[in-house]
């Protein structure tokens, strides 16, 4: 297969990584409007969970819980006081992210740690190694789970109600505080799952979160706040764009091109791919 055709599956697999890191953000940023800069550190927490357990499959649910509980604590302790000041949460959570990074450095040491990849992920099909296919599978599973949760469960539908109109949801008897807690728990937990998957392809160290956070936000912004299908489409599109831009130029330029395209795209669709219609006066 010619090298440029190889870039198609590679682009999809980059898209899967983007989707996985952004999936949690569609909850916390997308649904709740909280710019959680510590999202990257929740990913890092997931990766370190995999390091501590030494077993990838076992780490998936544990990392979900660990990162989820971290998110829950953050939400209860601080973020819930900030729902009317979204920009302040950005700075607050950046502070949290700094503390968590330094904490990781003190707990696990500054050097990267190694998470052994399971032997059944060695090898691959064509250009795609099994570990990339695993990540793609995980991304698909994550999207399906989120979709089912949002549309097929009572809690999920309540979440959507709160997103669309908080006051009305509250008056209808929904405990918005509980919904917020749960949403944050799930969003952060998904970051933890992403962290476990990333140990297959990247470094595991205190700086891990910083490598992914900007990309994750770009996906959510391009996809449209709170839009699952938007995030999926944006992740795939950005993955393919990245893959081909890098193939025909170089990695540095590809990054700049991706930024430029997102900015240009927001000129056409300022609210992202899909927009949640609302009549709320801002």
């Amino acid at each position: 297969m010619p090298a440029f055709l190889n870039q198609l599956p590679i682009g999809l697999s980059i898209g899967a990584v983007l989707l996985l890191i952004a999936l949690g953000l569609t909850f916390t940023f997308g649904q709740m409007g909280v710019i959680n800069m510590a999202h990257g550190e929740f990913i890092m927490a997931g990766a370190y969970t995999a390091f501590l357990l030494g077993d990838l499959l076992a780490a998936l649910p544990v990392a979900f819980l660990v990162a989820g509980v971290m998110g829950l604590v953050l939400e209860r302790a601080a973020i819930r006081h900030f729902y009317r000041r979204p920009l302040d949460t950005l700075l607050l959570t950046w502070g949290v992210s700094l503390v968590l990074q330094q904490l990781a450095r003190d707990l696990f040491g500054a050097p990267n740690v190694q998470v052994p990849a399971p032997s059944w992920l060695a090898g691959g099909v064509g250009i795609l190694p099994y570990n990339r296919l695993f990540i793609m599978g995980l991304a698909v599973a994550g999207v399906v789970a989120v979709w089912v949760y949002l549309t097929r469960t009572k809690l999920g539908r309540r979440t959507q109600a709160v997103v669309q109109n908080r006051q009305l949801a509250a008056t209808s008897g929904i405990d918005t505080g509980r919904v917020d807690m749960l949403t944050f728990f799930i969003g952060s937990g998904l970051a933890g799952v992403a962290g476990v998957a990333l140990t297959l392809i990247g470094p595991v160290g205190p700086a891990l979160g910083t490598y992914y956070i900007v990309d994750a936000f770009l996906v959510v912004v391009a996809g449209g706040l709170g839009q699952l299908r938007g995030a999926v489409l944006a992740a795939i599109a950005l993955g393919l764009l990245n893959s081909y831009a890098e193939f025909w130029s170089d990695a540095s330029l590809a990054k700049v091109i991706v930024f430029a395209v997102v900015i240009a795209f927001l000129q056409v669709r300022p609210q992202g791919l899909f927009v949640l219609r609302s009549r709320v006066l801002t």
Partner: protein
Amino acid sequence: MIRRHLPFATVAVIALVAAPLLLEPFRLGLLAKYLCYAIVALGIGLAWGQGGMLTLGQGVFFGLGGYSMAMYLKLAEGGGLPDFMVWSGVEELPALWVPFANPVFALGMAVLGPVALALVLGTLVFRQRVRGAYFAILTQALAAAMVILLVGQQGLTGGTNGMTNFFELFGQDLAEDSTQRGLYLVVAGVLGVLYLATRQLVQSRYGRLLVAVRDGEDRVRFLGYDPALVKTVTFAASAGMAGLAGALFVPVVGIISPALLGVVPSLELVVAVAVGGRHALAGAVLGAVVMGYAKTALSEQFAGGWLYLQGALFILVMTLAPKGVVGLAGRLRRARTT
């Protein structure tokens, strides 16, 4: 009027006169550096505190100013190609560099370059009513992209190293303590003038309109004003300040590099403004100086501690004193009088 300006005047006089006398040259240089950051912070205070535009990419404008100045300084040395071009394998001075041999052009670009970029960006973004979190993330992405661009063009910009090793500014030896003292006075003076000008702007009708846009953009639009224009102009003003600060920063500190204008330094300044108090311009200035000093002092004491402390400070300020130190001081005073 005089009474109200008295405290500011006192601080200004102390800073201008006392600091060069009291501080040894190394510390005075540091203070000059903080004051450069304070100029950027003033711009952030204007754009964010007054206008509600959380800009996380002020480093980009700071960098444009800094690089313009650095290009002039490199060319003013004489002796052919700048050092980094020699080891990057560039054989002829790139066309982009040629006009920067002129100090007027270089200084002009240091301010007008950022202003122009902000005008273009602001027009594009604010016309489309991109705001709030979107705007913040876009400016952050801009800072990230700018760093990658600068690093990638090593022959043109010095790559990750940036530019350093400057010798003289307008014929003055930069290594001399007297030059550094003079530079300090210039920086302090510029900060003072810009502070007064910004205050004047904020208290004008325009300033009130800006605050109105911050608090209810749609309502302002319904009243017949154009919020996009107001925001764009303000954003451009803050960008110009950042550019000027960058141009002053380079001779004071002696280096400009992509590390100085990326996501993290841009965010650190926003945090400094938040800590000082975003709604008061004095808070922004104070925050930048205090945070700059804290960083130097704490990193001399314990390296990792700075990160904990910076993180903790944000969390505390955001939760307990959202109006920053200035707001806290105001609250204390009110508590005392009642």
